[in-house]
């Protein structure tokens, strides 16, 4: 199948267009959008405008698999488009039908209905010519087999040069060393296929920027441990979203804005919910097609104290040398994005982290959503249920597809949560 050539793919005309409208609207109505939310939109717009400029100027840009460190791309002045950006743009623009249309198209060409929507959406968008064609694709065999299946198809549909970033399923020093080398191989591939060069000093600047963002982000996360939680659950979405662009000044600005807001809320004695009944550990992917965290707060007085995609351990990258930076970025890659961090290897890594974070954030119940398409999750859930039973942790197992509203509806998810919370209230 060849891609239909559109004058301006949806991602640029509608997705990026929507972000521009939001920023323009905010400028006309100062204070209409809360500071952190506006900073988040500005961050995404800044990243998207780089892609837009590259596409319009015929300059190289890259498609990126989930979880990869963005610092090398920024240092090489290579705009990147995360493969999930079409979906996130559609969600941001409130155009869920753009997602379902892409899913329908992907399935019509043979993607199975039980495969992950995260990769099926771009396949559909590519088939419809809604993504601008990249100069290089940085694919990967992580975080799960859905990436393997998805990139194999996208690679054949697009036929751009493709580099597969390959992380082992282990998390140790040898793996960190290997990842530093793999990052160097990726950089070499980018240099060869885009003509852009890596500048060590520029990489240092970018990494120092991401270290700053990391510090602010960790402090914001730390503030969530307070009981009652002073910060809204939806802050978590900004945290995980912000980490998709580590190294951009706009990312640091986002976390600074969040930090400022968090400190102000604490000073004022604000709480996420007036009466905090439940502190939830949401330890799987969230519901991306509807703001379920807001609903939880409003409907049940439940605050999500921490979630899987926002949690990350403290990892700063040593900027003393090029090698130390690659090693640090390798270490951060291993421990940063949730799917890579705890879902790429054996269950024990997930379980240990779950138990620790549940305790650190003083939660009193947990939700494991068990994203349908991840075929490793059912076994993980069976182990998690046992661990929670042993430790007396109330656990709601709530399978749905994080990205595909056709699989389990918002209403169904809300009903399941309500049944569970009602039961807990009776205990």
């Amino acid at each position, binding site marked *: *199948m060849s891609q239909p050539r559109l004058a301006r793919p949806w991602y640029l005309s509608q997705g990026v267009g929507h972000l521009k409208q939001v920023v323009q609207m905010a400028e006309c109505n100062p204070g209409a959008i809360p500071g952190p939310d506006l900073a988040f939109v500005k961050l995404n717009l800044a990243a998207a405008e780089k892609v837009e400029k590259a596409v319009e100027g015929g300059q190289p840009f890259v498609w990126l698999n989930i979880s990869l460190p963005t610092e090398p791309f920024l240092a090489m002045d290579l705009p990147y488009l995360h493969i999930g950006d079409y979906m996130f743009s559609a969600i941001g623009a409130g155009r869920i039908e753009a997602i379902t249309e892409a899913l329908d198209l992907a399935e019509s*060409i*043979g*993607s*199975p209905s*039980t*495969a*992950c929507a995260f990769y099926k959406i771009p396949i559909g968008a590519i088939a419809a010519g809604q993504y601008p064609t990249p100069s290089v694709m940085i*694919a*990967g*065999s992580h975080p*799960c*087999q*859905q990436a*393997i*299946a*998805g*990139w*194999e*198809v996208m*690679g*054949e549909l697009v036929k751009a040069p*493709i580099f*597969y970033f*390959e992380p*082992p*399923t*282990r998390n140790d020093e*040898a793996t960190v060393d*290997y990842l530093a*080398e*793999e990052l160097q*191989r990726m950089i070499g591939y980018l240099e060869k296929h885009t003509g852009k060069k890596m500048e060590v000093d520029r990489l240092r600047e970018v990494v120092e920027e991401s270290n700053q963002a990391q510090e602010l982000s960790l402090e914001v996360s730390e503030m969530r441990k307070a009981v009652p939680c002073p910060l809204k659950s939806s802050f978590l979405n900004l945290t995980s979203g912000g980490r998709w662009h580590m190294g951009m000044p706009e990312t640091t600005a986002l976390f600074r804005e969040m930090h400022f807001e968090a400190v102000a809320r604490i000073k004022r004695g604000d709480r996420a919910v007036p009466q905090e009944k439940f502190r939830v550990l949401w330890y799987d992917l969230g519901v991306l097609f509807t703001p379920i965290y807001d609903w939880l707060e409003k409907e049940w007085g439940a605050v999500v104290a921490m979630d899987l995609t926002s949690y990350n351990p403290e990892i700063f990258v040593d900027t003393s040398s090029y090698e130390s930076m690659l090693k640090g970025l390798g270490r951060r890659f291993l421990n940063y994005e949730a799917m890579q961090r705890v879902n790429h*290897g*054996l*269950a*024990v890594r997930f379980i240990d982290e779950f138990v620790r974070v549940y305790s650190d954030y003083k939660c009193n119940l947990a939700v494991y959503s*068990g994203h*349908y*398409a*991840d*075929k*490793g*999750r*059912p*076994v*993980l*859930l*069976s*182990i998690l249920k046992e661990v929670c039973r042993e430790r007396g942790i109330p656990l709601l197992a709530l*399978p749905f597809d994080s990205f595909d509203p056709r699989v389990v509806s918002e209403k169904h998810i809300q009903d399941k949560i309500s049944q569970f919370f009602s039961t807990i209230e009776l205990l």
Partner: protein
Amino acid sequence: MDEAAEILLQFSQVSSSIYNLSLKRWQDRGGKIVGLVCSYVPEELFTAAGILPFRLRATGSLDTSQGDPYAGAFTCSYVRHLLSMAFSGAYDFLDGIVCFNSCDHARRVYDIWSRKLTTPFQHYISVPHKGGADQVAVYRKELEVLKKSLESSFGVSIHDEDLRQAIRVHNQARRLQKIIYDLKAQESPPLSGAETLSILIAGTAMPKEEYNLLLKKLIPVLKARTGTSGYIARLMVAGSCLDNPAYIQVFEELGALIVTDLLCFGADACWSLIDETSADPLEALARYQLDERIPCARMVGQYPRRLGFIKDMVKTFNVNGVVCERMKFCDIWAAENLLFKRSLQESGIPVLSLEREYMLGNVGQMKTRIQAFLETITEGKKCHSPG
């Protein structure tokens, strides 16, 4: 019963059961057996240690009731049956098990097995999804750890020469299996596709030397046998793990002949040989698995190689149509089959995409689809015939 039929029956008995007479004789002599999930763990390492490698199947499983509490509705039925059999005690005879990150379904087998079952030796390895020298080096290190672990747990020493000898023995099996395939390339092959799959499966479930001896006896008898003729079409099967000859039999009962395949229990097991003279036999094993064998769909960026292999097979074996099969919920083979279908049909090769469960079922519906496929091929032949 002629000699060929006797040996084929023996292979059929081995492939249609889990615990077989050869395993019993091996254990009666004090031999150890280690089960392997999927094909990316090198059997040669175990042979070199004097341990019998046994590829884990769920042959004979009647249901998934004991596996289901640990799996989900979207977990592939191979894993559910395998866990069910393991919990039922069918694998209690194993002295060990080695798992790896074959796919997301199979990776989790280790998570459950290590928590719930008491098989004495349990080991997990991380196998790269990408080929190339850097990944071979990573995988070699994993094999080094596995080797040391086998040595300490089983009280053996594995020397390089032991590994080279094991490679020679396994290569010998591959050469003999390849001869079987050569026979299938003939216009009138002396054995069916179901028999071929039985032979190949048996190679993963009995001592290699014993297996090689049987193949050496079988091949000359097969060569002298009158071949099969009168079939409607020569088919190739490509796809995810298929270890049940009864599936192949369904096609053959309808008049097709499965002449070749791209299956890990089939041609993939024997098409390439491992370097027998390498100064570093562990590296040779890693290189074979990641770079030299026909790659499973778990290996990234290898679609062109797999497609090329199918196209070569279509020519060499004079194939009239390709069956792209996959086990339900196997997403990596689903993607592969999506691409195969596009490319093969563009090349004018008829394709049947088949989704199946691990255990043979839904035969009626399957037969209807196969019949329709065979009719398409027959019609196509008529259209293209000069008359």
